[in-house]
């Protein structure tokens, strides 16, 4: 009996690794910097070898800020980060602005910016970059891959073992995706008077996580209100969780 239980547990573990729910043996999932967020994901963080999507609202830099705080947590030995930006046609903007990255703890010197002119070029750049073993992460900013391209990107990320972070432009209905996780980050009003005016304060929703349960059960979503702490360069929760934490994953 114990043999069978052990075998089933071992098989589950292998399946979860193959499904990119858990990180592979040698790699570590990228921690989100907050135990509550990490705990919500089966892998204990963002697993490498796949895409993670971040949605935001119009004219809001919140998802960019969230991604920047994640980049700050990448180990230096992982390599440079490629940030590929396709600005929307009606609002050209310079992003990311390096001094703003410094405020969030990310190092602009390990960034390589790419500014392709068209969506086709941008998707090509992302795909090529996902396959390169020497990059730490690839960030796609303002690029919405159509379903076929999204599948290709996911395959490329799996091949290259790359951490792909896609910041999707604000749109009415986000397309269905094959990403490992999907988050929504929105700016929240921050109450001043606690010494620091205008700390980045976000509402982070986990919309989708592959393998919320172990065997691919329907992913629950959780909501957290996080505040960026300038002094300690990390996130912390603003108040006890508004909604209950998502059902414990195994």
């Amino acid at each position, binding site marked *: 009996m114990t043999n069978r239980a052990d075998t089933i547990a071992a098989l589950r573990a292998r399946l979860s690794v193959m499904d990119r729910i858990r990180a592979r043996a040698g790699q570590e999932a990228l921690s989100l910097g907050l135990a509550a967020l990490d705990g919500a994901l089966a892998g204990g963080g963002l697993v490498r070898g796949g895409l993670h999507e971040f949605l935001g609202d119009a*004219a809001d*830099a919140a998802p960019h800020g969230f991604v920047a705080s994640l980049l700050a947590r990448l180990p230096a030995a992982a390599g440079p980060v490629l940030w590929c930006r396709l600005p929307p046609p009606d609002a050209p903007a310079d992003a990311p*602005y390096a001094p703003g990255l410094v*405020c969030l703890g990310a190092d*602009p010197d390990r960034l390589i910016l*790419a500014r392709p002119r068209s969506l086709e*070029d941008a998707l090509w750049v992302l795909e090529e970059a996902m396959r390169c073993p020497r990059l730490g992460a690839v960030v796609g900013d303002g690029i919405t891959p159509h379903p076929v391209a999204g599948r290709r990107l996911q395959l490329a990320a799996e091949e290259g073992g790359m951490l792909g972070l896609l910041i999707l432009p604000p749109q009415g209905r986000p397309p269905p995706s094959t990403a490992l996780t999907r988050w929504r980050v929105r700016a929240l009003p*921050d109450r001043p008077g606690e010494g620091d*005016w*205008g700390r980045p304060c976000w509402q982070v929703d986990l919309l989708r996580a592959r393998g919320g349960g172990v065997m691919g059960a329907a992913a629950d979503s959780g909501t957290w209100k996080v505040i960026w702490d300038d002094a300690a360069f990390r996130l912390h929760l603003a108040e006890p969780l508004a909604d209950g934490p998502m059902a414990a994953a195994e």
Partner: protein
Amino acid sequence: MLPGQGGIRLHAVNALASADGLSVGMLLADARALCPTLVAPPADPAGDRADLGRLALWAQRYTPQAATDGTDGLVLDITGCAHLWSGEAGLLADLSQRLRRAGVTHHLALADSPAAAWGWARHRPAGAGEILPSGRAAWEALLALPLAALRLDAELTADLARVGLQRVADLHRLPRAPLTTRYGTAPTRRLDRLLGLGAEPLAPQTRPPQWRARLPLAEPIFTRDAIDTGLDRLLRDLCQQLEAGGRGARRLELLLLRSDASQQVLTLGTGQPLRDVSTLKRLFREKLDQAEPGFGIEMMLLTAVATDRFTASQTALGSGDAFALTFLLDRLCNRIGPDRIGPPLAEDEHQPERAMGFAGGGMGIAADGQDQTPLSSLPHVPHPASGLTHSPSAPPRSLSCLPRESGGPGAEGTETQVSVAPGSPLSRGRQDGANGNHGHDETKEGEGSPTPWPKAQPRAHTPRPRIWQVEAPRPLLLLDPPEPVEKPEAAALVWRGRRYGIDWMEGPERIRPDWWRARPGTGRDYFRLQLADGRRLWLFRTAEEVPRWFLHGLFP
């Protein structure tokens, strides 16, 4: 002007200046006294020599035997070539016209021997024609030349003048033996050469090595497979040449010649010298998507326009991912352009939009222009197809071409303005910035001089130690250009036609532009404010009489 004895002296003078009374060798101070509006940039003898070499290479369109002659002349051996321009007069006229179009002041002469041509070009009497008739009919004309036409040392000429010898005829009349005893063999040898009695070999100007592979096709090709196969063969050939020469290619140009005589050029640049066939084929893969066969491709020509010395550390290509990042950046640069990819640079500026720079070229290293061989500015000139008939009956004819290059008032640098004329591919690699002249017209499809491909740093991407000075909170997205908004009232902001409530507003933070860049009194007052829905914005107010408000950035 060059530093000389007693001060700076004039090195070269042009017609306008000599009309004013200036001459070569005059002191600059005297020259300025004579002509107060003199423009006298420093002379560049090395550059002049190099440019004369390029002119000699260009002159090889008339004959393969073209070489520089001294510091200010060219000599061309046009034996058997003149019939291609319908005679010697036609050839001279064509040469003169092209040089005139290029802005090169010149004196031409055509004679039986190089020495005779040299002498005739420089010292012929006023009113005499450029062409000396062949054979002994030119004897009297040559004998009437002054002694300077013998091209002897200045001291020797002065010695001979002191003795009373003024013309070549005087020297010719004297018995040889005492002349040789007294003055050495030089005068008699030069005399023989002038009169065509002595031999004078000519070493043509050598062209720098070209790395080129050519594939003429028996039938025009249309399909991508055929183009791939052709490119494969070209790459093998070229890489073999590069290996033999110990160099790697940094910039490649693939020329596709179509049946209707149109052509298409595809260029490729790499961060490191490469000569591996499979790597180059992979880099070319995206470029070939743009190839248009049209009516069929008849010939493919692959040139390594810029090459570098190939160091031994690059032999381990394709294995492992030591170069994976460099190759990735090469591919990205080739697809979206080297000016669209690179790291951000920290600039020492107060103005927020200038504080972050952008260094193109992948790794962001400044373009290394020294790797460009001057070959890149001399595209291949196809010679007339008839070749040279060296018939022994045709008398040897040498053309001495003396470009008298002197620019505007005073001694200007030698500038060659080249108009885009068919078959005149001369162009300048260096820019004479001193006069603001940009003699820099490239031929070939009218594109500018090939921008030097940025050179990658060796191997690993080590972050450069740059200091980002951030004194106050800065936004993560900066709008370019800043968006105008209405002045925010106490509790509301009108932005993009909608009204938002304001939670709080913090500021001002005054940022003044650099004092040498802007008028005094300009500046911006920056405010951070938070809207009711949580978004944090960065606004500024210009410091004018009626201040205007702009939205400059978005905070995370």
